[in-house]
């Protein structure tokens, strides 16, 4: 009880901080902390975590080149074919979806505002038809005007083709478009009945069932318009038709992307982005430690991935106050957790699952993520930056979070396994942190007689062949699976539906690895998504969270946090809560 209160207070503190920031206005309204330090030293007169709650180094100065670097490369630069959070953030520089997130730190940033659309979607009474009016005069970089048919085409190509497979398929799931073969097989767009365009500025979405969070779906870059004549399929990523403040200058796949100003972007139609740097350069496939070095030296401005610095740089930043004051420690959208299979013995008995909840030393499982800087110890399925989140802890495991062994033993006895049992922990073997978490868990459980064997599987086939394949899980007795999940949009439904809805249990590629198929959870999810009142809906998400945790099959290790570094020559910096990283559409550079 005491710890529940402590958690509640901690979360309240976070919320208040975010709320206060929000009260300070949007990102553009705050920010009198103009940095003036030396390049790369980070001595900019700002404090640790400043950009989490307010705009740092505010400046409307134009010019210069904003430089990003990334250890990887995007799945695709095509807004319709990407599933990376950082790319959803970055692609807004050249692609405008119907809706987008308000540019503000804290809770305000989780609110949606119109982007390509004039206003939020107008739902029909039955909640199955959503209508959006487009702003007039929005142009592509070639000067042609955006039409409603381009939005319809964008939805069709991104969700109904077998070539563009990297992005989510929510529109295919929810739109009433049975039998549609997709625009590459069926060139007649009129055959796509899931979206209608009665005129050039109206887009009407026809849904199979009511979906009250549809505005969140169209905030996905997949609703950014694509002219059918310019679609080159998988090659479209090499020259995307831009509607944002920047357009493609050149793109060498796997090496470099250069963006320049889009002269046909009209700021009067766009209240959420800025166009400060003259040019944006992105280097892909860069050495992770070298990116940090360049970041600390001010040679690049942002690590595009937004996943934070490496351990070496982290130690350096934490050890030097002037560097630490130029860093931020935001939540990412990720919860790092273990799921216990409700179909693998003895975890088909809830008491055995509870025993694991109580016995786990959560300080030890937090350590691989980097201790408190890597995340707060978790106790729920939803994360603190998810709309509808409420803190609670059904399985308090000691005041110090190191495990309540007495309670664990009680649960073991209730499970009929008083001396413990044997099980397997499945983990992605090439993910060092997750392996370390599994080892910490193994040591924790051993204290109450639960002997766990760690089974390592390759991450590439993790979902399709191993932990995401129930048949494999059952045959190999994978009782515990270490995993993580980040929401596609920051609401309870966006976070929970794919991982807790029993109807989403798939033969392969399954993310509900615990195979929880609780009718009350499924019904609540349906009820929530049909509830139009936001407050009532958020209450339902919280209820779903509680139901899931009551099953004891889900155990959160940490609500992941990351350590971002902002060089002093980077201006207009704040952490956008919808992405858990800096808002890439607001950044500017201080010219040397």
């Amino acid at each position, binding site marked *: 009880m005491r710890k529940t209160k402590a958690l509640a207070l901690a979360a309240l503190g976070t919320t208040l901080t975010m709320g206060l920031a929000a009260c300070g206005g949007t990102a553009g309204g705050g920010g009198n902390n103009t940095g003036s330090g030396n390049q790369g030293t980070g001595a900019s007169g700002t404090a640790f975590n400043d950009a989490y709650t307010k705009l740092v180094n505010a400046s409307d100065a134009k010019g210069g080149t904003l430089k990003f670097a990334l250890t990887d490369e995007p799945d695709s630069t095509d807004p319709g074919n990407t599933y990376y959070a950082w790319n959803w953030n970055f692609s807004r520089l050249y692609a405008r979806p119907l809706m987008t997130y308000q540019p503000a730190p804290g809770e305000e940033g989780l609110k949606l505002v119109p982007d390509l659309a004039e206003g939020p979607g107008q739902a029909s009474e039955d909640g199955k038809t959503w209508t959006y009016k487009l702003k007039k005069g929005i142009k592509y970089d070639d000067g042609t005007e955006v039409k409603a048919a381009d939005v319809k085409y964008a939805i069709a190509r991104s969700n109904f083709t*077998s*070539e*563009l497979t990297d992005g989510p398929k929510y529109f295919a799931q929810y739109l009433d478009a049975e039998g549609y073969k997709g625009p590459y097989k069926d060139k007649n767009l009129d055959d796509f009945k899931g979206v209608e365009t009665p005129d050039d500025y109206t887009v009407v979405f026809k849904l199979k069932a009511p979906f009250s969070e549809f505005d969140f779906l169209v905030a996905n870059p997949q609703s950014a318009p694509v002219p059918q004549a310019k679609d*080159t*399929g998988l090659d479209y990523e090499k020259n995307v038709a831009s509607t944002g403040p920047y357009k493609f200058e050149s793109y060498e796949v796997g090496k470099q992307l250069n963006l320049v100003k889009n002269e046909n972007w009209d700021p009067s139609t766009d209240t959420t982005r800025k166009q400060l740097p003259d040019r944006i350069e992105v280097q892909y496939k860069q050495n992770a*430690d*070298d990116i940090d070095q*360049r970041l600390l030296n001010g040679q690049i401005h942002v690590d595009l991935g937004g996943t934070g610095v490496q351990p070496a740089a982290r130690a350096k930043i934490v050890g030097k106050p002037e560097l630490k004051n130029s860093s931020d420690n935001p939540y990412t959208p990720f919860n790092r957790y273990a799921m216990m299979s409700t179909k693998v013995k003895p975890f088909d008995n809830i008491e055995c699952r509870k025993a694991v909840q109580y016995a786990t030393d959560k300080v030890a499982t937090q350590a691989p993520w980097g201790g408190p800087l890597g995340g707060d110890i978790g106790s729920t399925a939803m994360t603190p930056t998810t709309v509808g989140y409420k803190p609670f802890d059904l399985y308090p495991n000691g005041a110090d979070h190191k495990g309540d062994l007495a309670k664990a033993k009680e649960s073991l006895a209730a499970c009929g396994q008083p001396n413990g049992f044997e099980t397997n922990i499945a983990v992605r073997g090439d993910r060092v942190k997750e392996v370390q978490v599994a080892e910490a868990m193994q040591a924790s459980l051993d204290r109450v007689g639960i002997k766990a064997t760690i089974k390592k599987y390759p991450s590439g086939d993790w979902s399709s*062949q191993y932990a995401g394949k129930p048949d494999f899980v059952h045959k190999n007795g994978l009782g515990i699976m270490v995993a993580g999940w980040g929401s596609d949009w920051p609401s309870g439904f966006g976070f929970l539906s794919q991982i807790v809805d029993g109807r989403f249990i798939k033969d392969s*590629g399954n993310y509900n690895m615990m195979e929880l198929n609780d009718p009350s959870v499924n019904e609540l999810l349906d009820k929530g998504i049909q509830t139009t009142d936001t407050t009532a809906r958020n209450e339902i998400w919280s209820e779903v969270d509680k139901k899931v945790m009551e099953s004891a099959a889900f155990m959160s290790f940490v609500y992941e946090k990351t350590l971002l570094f902002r060089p002093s020559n980077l201006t207009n910096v704040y952490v956008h809560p919808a992405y858990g990283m800096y808002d890439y559409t607001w950044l500017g550079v201080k010219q040397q």
Partner: protein
Amino acid sequence: MVAFIVRRVIAAVLMLAVVSAATFAIFFLIPRALGQTPEGMASRYVGRDATPEAIQGAVKRLHLDDPLIVQYGRFAKGIVAGEDYSLGPRKAECPAPCFGYSFNNNQPVWPTLLDRLPATMSLAAGAAILWLIAGVSIGIVSALRRGTALDRAAMTVALAGVSLPIYFTGLVSLSVFAYTLGIFPGGGTYTGISENPVAWFQALVLPWITLAFLYAALYARLTRAGMLETMGEDYIRTARAKGLKESTVVTKHALRATLTPILTIFGLDVGLLLGGAVLTESTFSIPGVGKLVIDAIRGNDLPVVLGVTMFAAFFIVLANLIVDILYAVVDPRVRLS
């Protein structure tokens, strides 16, 4: 000589055919033998939320449901005659030699390899010149001054060079010379020689030195050992007895004999590096063949891994051929006929 070269070229082509079959078997036959399904393989090329239909689409597009012999035949035919791939509303041409198509980065493999080759060649050539000159020189001096402080110091440095991994020396050199002293540019600054020769040179100095440090150390030790052995030979004593100058004895007689095995290793090393200096390119973020293959391995991009393997095998075979021909030049006792 011509007959020798023709024989070796035919052998090289056969060798490459064997390598292609073996690598294809490793990447496609063995996984299938271990129970991997076509859908499982296709799932690597689709997103995390791919529908079964999308996975089936990838199976069809990549012909993963064909018998393996048919798949290999298509791969081999692509190398000779090219192949087309569907990108949705249009097809992508992959002209011969088509080493496959990467569906991770939507590019044919062969142009990608060619695009990455200049960076790798720049790195390998510069480093090879450095290590050959430095390694052989140090080895000679060390052998001629055997047992002196100079010899011991040189061999200590050589031991360090052999022992320290490139990712360590590379990151340390970047930290010191690029980010602390600011003498050289940092990582990720590689520029093509045709775009900006000065920037090209500046960006490669540290990678050259880092890579050459490892190899020079090896070559110094090899040269020293070879020279010490050769200098004890009867014909060296005879040369000295004839009254030849010591410099002539060393360069014309001892060094020539020592260089023969070194040349063999040099050829193989350069051939290997042209297939990608993985660690150096990764440490300095140089977009070369080595960086390409390591990224492809991480991303399960089998067509690229297969292409780079063939590419690397080609250079090793080529290097062997050149070394064999050069043998005759360096060592008159060798006759190619």
